[in-house]
């Protein structure tokens, strides 16, 4: 029992950054923007939070919990917003190719992250190249006081910092927004057929800008969670890895539904750490680590073959909207 609960706990921790990324990407894609820059935006979200946290931790005499949470959080949101705005400006205003722009943003984001990360590491002249923001991380890891006494099941549910629950809340909120609100309906119509939406008096550009920017900010939180909560405030260049791509895979896995993305993220998180829980020869590890991607391909094939309307991607996904186009 303890083993299973421990496994669930680790899977949720691994899955949470993915959930932020996937929720952000779903919101973005619902506006018709295929943002392949999500891995880069998550990376920038992480480093922005780290820069903010670093400045605060090194300059503050004592670390106050509220500021320790707010400063990195705001910096993270600002950093990922700025990056998303670059993407928006290029793809919506200038109508650049979304795939190319997205990939460029990812490369750019990782570069920016490593540049600032590397620079900060140089400043502190550490023996081993890493930054330690453990004092800041403490604030992010505050758990409910009774979590420790609740046994394995309680631990698997209540033992996390606030960002784990925030990820679920945001995913549910996005789901409600898309399904149940007028603004959500407008956004979906923009993603399905912007010309019709435009004709109905919906401001396509504004919806695309807002959805992509807010989606980017949500994804950025995934990067912040990874550093501040999961990694206990330790930044090393490239430590975040390439989990941003997994987030995009989850969008397909979840067939553009945030609620399914919650399950999908935890499932992908579980597959990611599965190698520790089953005994396999080391040469087979890559096969196990391949599982999330195989699952994605299977879902993609199944969805494409069944052609069920509600499981399809937004009809104008990846296409730029130009009112005067014939």
């Amino acid at each position: 029992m303890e083993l299973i609960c421990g496994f669930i706990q680790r899977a949720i921790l691994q899955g949470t950054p993915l959930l932020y990324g996937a929720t952000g990407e779903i919101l973005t894609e619902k506006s018709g923007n295929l943002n392949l820059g999500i891995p880069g935006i998550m990376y920038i979200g992480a480093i922005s939070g780290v820069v903010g946290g670093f400045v605060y931790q090194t300059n503050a005499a004592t670390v106050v919990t509220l500021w320790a949470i707010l400063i990195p959080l705001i910096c993270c949101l600002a950093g990922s917003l700025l990056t998303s705005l670059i993407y928006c400006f290029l793809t919506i205003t200038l109508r650049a190719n979304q795939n190319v722009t997205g990939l460029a943003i990812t490369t750019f984001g990782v570069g920016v992250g490593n540049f600032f990360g590397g620079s900060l590491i140089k400043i502190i002249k550490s023996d081993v190249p890493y930054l330690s923001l453990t004092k800041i991380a403490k604030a992010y890891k505050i758990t409910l006081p009774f979590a420790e006494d609740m046994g394995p099941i309680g631990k698997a549910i209540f033992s996390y910092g606030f960002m784990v629950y925030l990820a679920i809340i945001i995913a549910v909120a996005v789901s409600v927004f898309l399904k149940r609100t007028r603004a959500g309906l407008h956004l979906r119509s923009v993603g399905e057929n912007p010309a019709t939406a435009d004709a109905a008096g919906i401001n396509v550009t504004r919806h695309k800008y807002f959805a992509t920017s807010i989606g980017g900010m949500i994804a950025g939180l995934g990067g912040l969670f990874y550093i501040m909560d999961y990694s206990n405030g330790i930044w090393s260049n490239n430590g975040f890895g390439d989990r941003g791509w997994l987030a995009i895979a989850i969008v397909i896995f979840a067939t553009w539904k945030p609620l399914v993305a919650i399950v999908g993220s935890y499932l992908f998180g579980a597959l990611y750490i599965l190698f520790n829980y089953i005994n396999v020869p080391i040469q087979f590890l890559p096969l196990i680590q391949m599982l999330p991607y195989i699952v994605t391909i299977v879902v993609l094939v199944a969805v494409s073959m069944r052609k069920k309307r509600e499981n399809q991607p937004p009809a104008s996904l990846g296409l730029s909207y130009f009112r005067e186009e014939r």
Partner: protein
Amino acid sequence: MKKILALFLAVVMMLTLVACGAQKDDNNDASNPETQTGESDELLPRAEIKSEVEIPADFKIGMICLHDENSTYDNNFIRALKSVQQGLGMSDDQVIIVTGIGEDATCYDTAVDLAKNKGCKVIFADSFGHESFMKQAAKEFPDVQFCHATGTSSKIAGIENFHNAFASIYEGRYIAGIAAGMKLNEMIKEGKITADEAIIGYVGAFTYAEVISGMTSFYLGARSVCESATMKVRYTGSWYDQAKEQEAATALIENDKCVLISQHADSLGAPTACELKNVPNVSYNGSTFSAGENTFIISSAINWAPYFQYIIESVVKGEKIDTDWCGDIATNSVVLSGVNRNVMAEGTIEKLNEAIDGFKKGEIKVFDTSKFTVDGKNLTEYLADVDGDFTGETNVIHDGYFDESNAEKFRSAPYFDIIIDGVTNLNTNFGE
């Protein structure tokens, strides 16, 4: 709407400015080693570089690195070469460091460029996979010396100007292991664990001899003071994967009931897991005190500076560089960080200093065959793979010990690949 947006953007810009402006005047960071309080002075520090050899102004050394200084592994080389540059009074033009060179033909191209166009007299490459490309370049430029870290084939390659080097880091790991064993003893004494529960967890990258040699020496060090210690090992299949290392360490702690963790992989994953779970950690590659103020005990690392100084001075003096070279504690090629006083067991520093003296006097043999068994038996002979063809052919046990990393007789790169009694591999079976 526009006003709100403008206001928001203004706030964002202000924050950005604050963030950028404040970075520069930072000098009181908690992770700065100089301001740490809980960590003792380094037990085996990097010695100051002194030399009587004058380096001519036209002498140049080139170094090829797999990644850049943000990689723990490469940073160790870059840092060492820069300290030698400073110690020998060489200018920046005389030391050319090329980073981000993969283990492919780019390495050959870079080596050729350094030899032909940049005029380097000696070229060093830091990654195992660079070896064949360095040999290829060495054949074409017989007047340039090509040195390669961690490689295995200089002795059998028959190329005059190609050399391998390593350090007997197992000595450092053995000493770090003693600190771990003392911590285990303290935990037993305090009643936190029973003697049987003294289980060490080890996160390894691959089941290579390099990792097995290191983990076994660490374990033997721990067992030299805590007889009941056993060790469980999980491999990640990667030299650098923060999340995998962290997860492997967490699984060792939670599932396998390990009470102390060490690692041979390059990220901060294992030390982070230890700090989060409040489990003592013996680190590698340099002090990770600031990532684990409550759990870090000590760290060992290879210091490449003595080798760099040796090859530079040899070339300048026109002397031959050893085909294969292995540094040790005596040559300052193995260094130890300070010990974390918050975590270490009482008397650790004294005990470790004794061991350091023992190594300097040559009294301690890490792989003393009377100190460990394999399948219940003491080894009297072991055919190790010294020539790198994956089959053992050379007996490396003599005079009652396994003669690891003997560059003169065998080779510098580790060849101890035996899983001894007391050590359990959890996620590999060597394909049996």
